[in-house]
């Protein structure tokens, strides 16, 4: 029995040469099919003399194995290149726009509102709110701003009746809180406030966050520390902060707090009017007159209060120049936030 191994081994070349899975399969049929060349060898096994049978059988086995190993490898290779050819054909214009979900936004004042709230709540303050239309009593009287006090000139008030006003600050929330519970008090009161003033730097409605801490042994130093920490968390820990004496009827001593100008880094520019400082909040130690009105013992407790305009902080944070753009609600403005 003569077998031309070289002839049979041509399958190696044929496998290598087949360019598609279909061609490759034809090679398989040719060698391993029912009438395939290698299959034929198996059929001839019975005619092989007994002493050579084993050797012949092993040779066929080897041929089959090496054929299949090679075949499988080539098959994988072809499948891969065919897949990648197919996928290449499916490629999209990846520069075309996606489904046009609207670009939603949170109003910048509200983002900053929650940012401020988060800073103070992380320090242990609670959030309190109250009515925007408020009794004169809570907006003024309880805060040591009686009728005919010059301090009323500091806040142009909207009236809806003789003793009902749109709150000019969120301090009435503090008055309400103090009337309803005893120290320790540690609240911030964010919300809308109103003043009868409308020009390039004033809108008749704006937002404030005010805070109040009343407990035993609270000092002016604590007030400085709390607000310095706030400013550093809001604007960065390298911002210089200064406290300057001022006046508010419900605090004593009172202070205005300035921070280094974020626009010019303190060198002096148009925004800080050349001073290098930006006024950012007002504060002070709570006036004993306020404690007396709410029935706290000023010998036992001390505390501080502070207030800031959210618009101003928002303007500084985002570099917004015109206060009025907050209430125009132009989508070109809103969609930037």
């Amino acid at each position, binding site marked *: 029995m003569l077998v031309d191994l070289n002839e049979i081994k041509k399958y190696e070349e044929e496998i290598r040469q087949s360019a598609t899975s279909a061609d490759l399969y034809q090679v398989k049929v040719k060698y391993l099919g029912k009438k395939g060349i290698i299959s034929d060898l198996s059929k001839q096994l019975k005619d092989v003399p007994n002493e050579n049978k084993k050797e012949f059988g092993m040779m066929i086995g080897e041929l089959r194995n090496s054929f299949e190993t090679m075949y499988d490898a080539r098959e994988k290779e072809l499948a891969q290149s065919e897949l990648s050819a197919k996928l290449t054909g499916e490629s999209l214009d990846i520069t075309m726009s996606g489904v046009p979900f609207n670009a939603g936004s949170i109003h910048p004042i509200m983002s900053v509102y929650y940012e401020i709230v988060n800073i103070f709540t992380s320090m242990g303050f609670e959030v309190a709110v109250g*009515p925007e239309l408020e009794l004169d009593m809570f907006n003024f009287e309880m805060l040591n701003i009686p009728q005919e006090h010059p301090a009323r000139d500091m806040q142009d008030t909207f009236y809806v009746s003789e003793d009902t006003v749109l709150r000019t600050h969120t301090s009435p929330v503090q008055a309400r809180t103090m009337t309803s519970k005893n120290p320790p008090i*540690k609240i911030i009161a964010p919300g*809308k406030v109103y003043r009868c003033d409308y020009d390039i730097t004033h809108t008749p409605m704006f937002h404030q966050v005010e805070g109040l801490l009343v407990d035993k042994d609270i000092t002016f130093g604590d007030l400085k520390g709390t607000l310095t920490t706030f400013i550093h968390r809001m604007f960065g820990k390298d911002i210089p902060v200064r406290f300057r004496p001022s006046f508010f009827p419900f605090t004593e001593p009172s202070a205005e707090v300035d921070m280094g100008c974020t626009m010019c880094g303190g060198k002096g520019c148009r925004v800080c009017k050349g001073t290098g400082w930006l006024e950012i909040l007002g504060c002070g130690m709570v006036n004993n007159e306020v404690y007396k009105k709410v029935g706290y013992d000023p010998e036992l407790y001390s505390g501080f209060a502070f207030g800031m305009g959210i618009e101003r902080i928002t303007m500084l944070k985002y570099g917004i120049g015109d206060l009025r753009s907050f209430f125009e609600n132009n989508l070109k403005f809103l969609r930037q936030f």
Partner: protein
Amino acid sequence: MRISLNWINEFVDTTGIDPKELAEKLTMSGLEVEALEIKERLENVVVAKVLKCEKHPDADKLSLCVVSTGDEEHQVVCGAPNVAAGQTVVFAKIGAELPGGFKIKKAKIRGTESSGMICAEDEIGLSDDHAGIMILPDSLEAGTDVNTFLGLPDVMMEIGITPNRADCLSMIGYAREIAAIYGLPMKSKKYDLKETDDKAENYSGVVIENKTACPTYTARVIKDVKLAPSPFWMQNRLRAVGVRPINNIVDITNYVCFEYGQPLHTFDLKEIDGKIIIRNAKPGEKMLFLDEKERTFNEDMLLIADEKKSLALAGIMGGEHSGINPDTKDVLLECAYFEPKSTRKTARKLGMQTDASYRYERGIDHGNTPDMTEYGAYLLQEVCGGKVCRGVLGEVEKPEIIRFSVDSEWINKYLGTEIPQKDIVKILSDLNLSPEVKGTEITVTSPTYRVDINGKQDVAEEVARIYGYDNIPTTLPKIHADGMPMSRELTARRDIAQKMKTLGFNEAVNYSFMKDDFLKIFDDESKFVKLLNPISEDMNTLRTLVFPGLLATIKFNLNNGFKQANFFEFASTFIKTGEKLPEQKSYMTAAIAGQYWPMSWAAPAPAEPFYIMKGVLENILASYKITAEYTRSTRTYLHPGKGAEVMVNGQSIGFIGELHPAIADTIDLRENVVMFEISMEKLVENARFIYKFSDFSKFPSIYKDISVVVDDKTPSVDMINCIKETSRLAEDAFLFDVYAGKGIEEGKASRTYRVYFSATDRTLTDEETNSILQKMIENLTKQFGAQLR
């Protein structure tokens, strides 16, 4: 408040102090310097006499003058209409540099040489006046340096004064502050009054009827005053602090007012009938004022009157009739203390604010009032040549002395400082608080000009501001760790805003007020809360509904070129209820104008905007575990067919719907708007924040579809309920296709519902589900006349 350092130097010597440093120190001690203006000396500017003045040969409006500066003569071309020979003028020589950087050089004007300039007031920085050149008194010699009589150099500051610092509405007040800050001595002022033998009481008298409102009223009679412009030094000082000089008598009252903070008033003596009476006005009483306006009084208002008529409104303004006029010869000088509250009440009621009322309202130095009568009379004597009659008319009440103790340890504890007691005492002493020390207890006496110092906190403040806020150590308070988290409503508001952002909505913030006429389109006027003093009629009513504000926002943006817009807003509404405080509730509102999806090749097929908004609302409600039912709404501002009440547990929490097309038309909205508005209070009330997990089947769910034809008015939700109620194995069902049109009878619609089945103990078989499906179809047919498709 403007101040002049030259003037302040009368009381404290500030020479050698850098004005910038002074400004900084004043600011840091509570007197905020808002502007600093340094006026330098004028070099090469001298007094000159106009020797000759002729018309310029080649220009009608110019004059050719020769002026003498004593040692020299200069030819100069002058354009002022009022220049004339013989005048004494301010002359800028070659080489002078005027304020604003204008340099005087030799020049040729219309072919004629001009060496210098005759100056107008604005050119030397004296005022804004450029009507003509400044004419000086002839007594000034040619060649005299102008700086002395122009009050140069000087430093002016604009101070932002807080309402408590009534003492700093005068130059002496700033002098005292500077003395305290720098530890400098105060200078005292002496004046010598020469009384004649003529007695004041021969001419008038004073009767105070209301001593509460006017505890002190003094007056002097000064005769033979000569009305003229005031001397330069007085004019300069008044100008420096922003007061326009008028005549010597008026200027004197202003001078004392700005120097000591004591308002004075002068009456023309011949216009006073008998005694001065300080009394309350009679209701309806009227008077014509110096500003030529007539005002009507009420009985709370305090008047200065005589026996026949009213003369002035106490502490605010004088009457026209009794004012100083060119014929005035003799005057009655008023120097009084009026009570702050009643002055303020009157000034506010009449809408008047004057330099006098401004000071009386805040509280003047009552203790100094009698001295100021003398000082005012002295100035009338010296400046106007007046003869001061013997005796002071009126009554003086001594102000109450405020004296109290404060513990120096308490001050340190309150401020968080460790200031040595001796330093505290020094500060208080520098501030004239006359500290008396006993152990750690310090007793202070408030000077009568410091009306703001009444208690220990005031003293702590004084110590703190002079010690320097910056020197107080910065500490953090110990806060009790029992803080409450933010309320559910505020948390929900924050979380919903985030969700709305993700869903493609832009948050708007609108004013709480709008025009009543606009709001009337949507709501009943009887609910309106109106402002008594609105900024404008466009903002006169508080919102009773939130969405009208959003409609205005939408309109604004559509007019600005946007084709569609999605907005949301959280705001309070204000509804009149008859209670003192109107009802104020927080609402969330959202609106879509036009299509939800912006124009794009990739935009999904347009859906009815109502259903988009309903999807948004359901999405929000689902996150609070709220299931709402939708019933047809009768709100008149909604499209009658596309509006629903959002019902939760039997009550409406708000509405959803399309804006009524007729209203859209009225308010000129070009796109359809679908919106919802829900009560935040009711949302939180109905939300489930605490709930238990419910077990679910571990076996896969299987689904089957039912397609039926029904009357197209059949509410879909009823059919879903019918399907679900048929078997407890039906865990969910939803409408996934609707078809009407070809092949379907008019008025009918084909609806396909997908039903999910599952059991907790087994995988359901086809037979089981098919038989349930059969029952479902039977039930749908029974209830809704559904036909299988």
